[in-house]
């Protein structure tokens, strides 16, 4: 079955931008994902939750091309992309804000943002717009990114991803290690970002946060999908069962 067109080509539902089917991901001999399915439609905000080691980051690394997979396991707008290199996937309009931010230490704040636009994709996001979104970055544009606070670094990481004018932006644990007030200010920027028509996958440990920003939620447990549903409809019991397996 190539890219599941038979299911999604119908009139009932538009074709998803991203469809993952029966994805098995491996780190060497270690298997981290088992037959994961996920579909994302344009303009959606999807939350992925799960305990530590459930496979959330592996899923992000697989979609972004940092992990090689079966080519047909991941499809983008109907085309298989599972075995493409990360730079090829970035050029298609899939951006990742990686866990732990991982800014380039030898680049200044502004250079980190500029290199995000390396793909040359056209769209609403420019250096100017990023500075409007996070004014503090403009003040510190020429400083090495390592001198910034954690929250400011996270802003650079998000700005860096936006600079590629992505269709899909994946954010992996963007609140990890940040003070609650900082998390709040970063999430406050999210609606403005999404209103540009961006599709977003949010990986979060904070379940309440994840549910409040997303329309659908997928829970992973030990490398398998344990729950799928609409964020407003899932119950606390369902989540705790899917999350902890009890």
């Amino acid at each position, binding site marked *: 079955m190539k890219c599941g067109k038979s299911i999604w080509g119908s009139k009932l539902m538009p074709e998803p931008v991203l469809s993952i089917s029966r994805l098995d991901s491996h780190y060497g001999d270690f298997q981290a994902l088992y037959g994961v399915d996920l579909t994302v439609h344009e303009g959606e905000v999807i939350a992925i939750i799960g305990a530590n080691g459930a496979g959330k980051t592996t899923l992000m690394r697989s979609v*972004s*091309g*940092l992990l090689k997979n079966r080519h047909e396991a991941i499809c983008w707008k109907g085309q298989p992309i599972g075995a493409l*290199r*990360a*730079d*090829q996937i*970035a*050029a298609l309009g899939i*951006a*990742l804000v*990686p866990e732990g931010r*991982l800014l*380039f*230490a*030898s*680049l200044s704040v502004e*250079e980190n943002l*500029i*290199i*995000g636009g*390396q*793909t*040359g994709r056209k769209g609403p996001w420019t250096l100017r717009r990023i500075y409007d979104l996070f004014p503090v970055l403009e003040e510190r544009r020429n400083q090495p990114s390592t001198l910034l606070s954690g929250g400011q670094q996270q802003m650079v990481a998000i700005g*860096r991803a936006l600079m*590629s004018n992505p269709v899909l932006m994946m954010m992996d644990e963007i609140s990890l290690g940040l003070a609650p007030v900082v998390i709040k200010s970063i999430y406050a920027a999210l609606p403005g970002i999404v209103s540009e028509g961006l599709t977003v996958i949010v990986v979060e440990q904070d379940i309440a946060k994840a549910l409040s920003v997303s329309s659908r939620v997928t829970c992973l447990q030990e490398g398998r999908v344990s729950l799928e549903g609409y964020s407003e409809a899932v119950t606390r019991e369902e989540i705790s069962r899917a999350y902890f397996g009890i």
Partner: protein
Amino acid sequence: MDWVNAIVQGTLLGGLYALFAAGLSLIFGVMRLVNIAHGDLIVLSAYVTLTISAALGLNPLLSLVLVVPLMALLGYLMQRLILNRTMGEDILPPLLVTFGLSVIIQNALLVGYSADPQKLNAGAIETAAVPFGPITVGVMPLIVFVTAVVVIAALQWIFYRTALGRAFRATSDRQDIAQLMGLNRAHVFGMAMALSLAVTAVAGVFLGIRTSFDPAVGGSRLIFGFEAVIIGGLGNLWGTLCGGVILGIAQTVGAKIHPGYQILAGHLVFLLILAVRPRGLFPRMD
């Protein structure tokens, strides 16, 4: 006055060593690769220049216009077709593959050009000299030194002021994340090697004008370049220039004491600095 003269000549010689070293320093900075064939590629450049300037009747200095892009292209292809397959956590494959390349280049030159020493003839400029008070300085060594300064300034500019340099630094920091930015690592590495061999081409031409060369001299050029890099401190291009100068002075002063001590003195100063300042004089990189 003789000693002052030795130091001046050594400083100028250091410019040549900095040119040997700059390409080595560059690829180590971008991809942590140490190219054992680097010295043989310098010698290869000298032979390519020899052939081109003979065929076209060009002054070797002018033929740089052709040799530099030619060597850059060779570097790009070498990286994309061979060396990229060896890049990873294990240092053994790149080391042994570049070692194999070194032996291949050396012996291919032996087959093509024989073991007879050759020299590049740059004309009257070779013997021209300008007096600075009591010391006379050759025009050619002066050109070499100025070129070294210009080349290092240019590399510095590329590294810190251009998109390519940004890509180099980003890839050097985090290869995987750089890939997420849409940078093709294989291409970035290819460009780094191309740039390295462009510098190597310049170094090879100056080597061939300064002294006679044969296919076997590559090894010691690699060692001189390597010593300049380590003396100056990893990851610091201006430091590499200083390292080259220190090495050059050590050699000319050593030769002043006894002709047989020239090279030895350079090695001993290198080992001494390694003993006292293991990270070099101006380290920047871990």
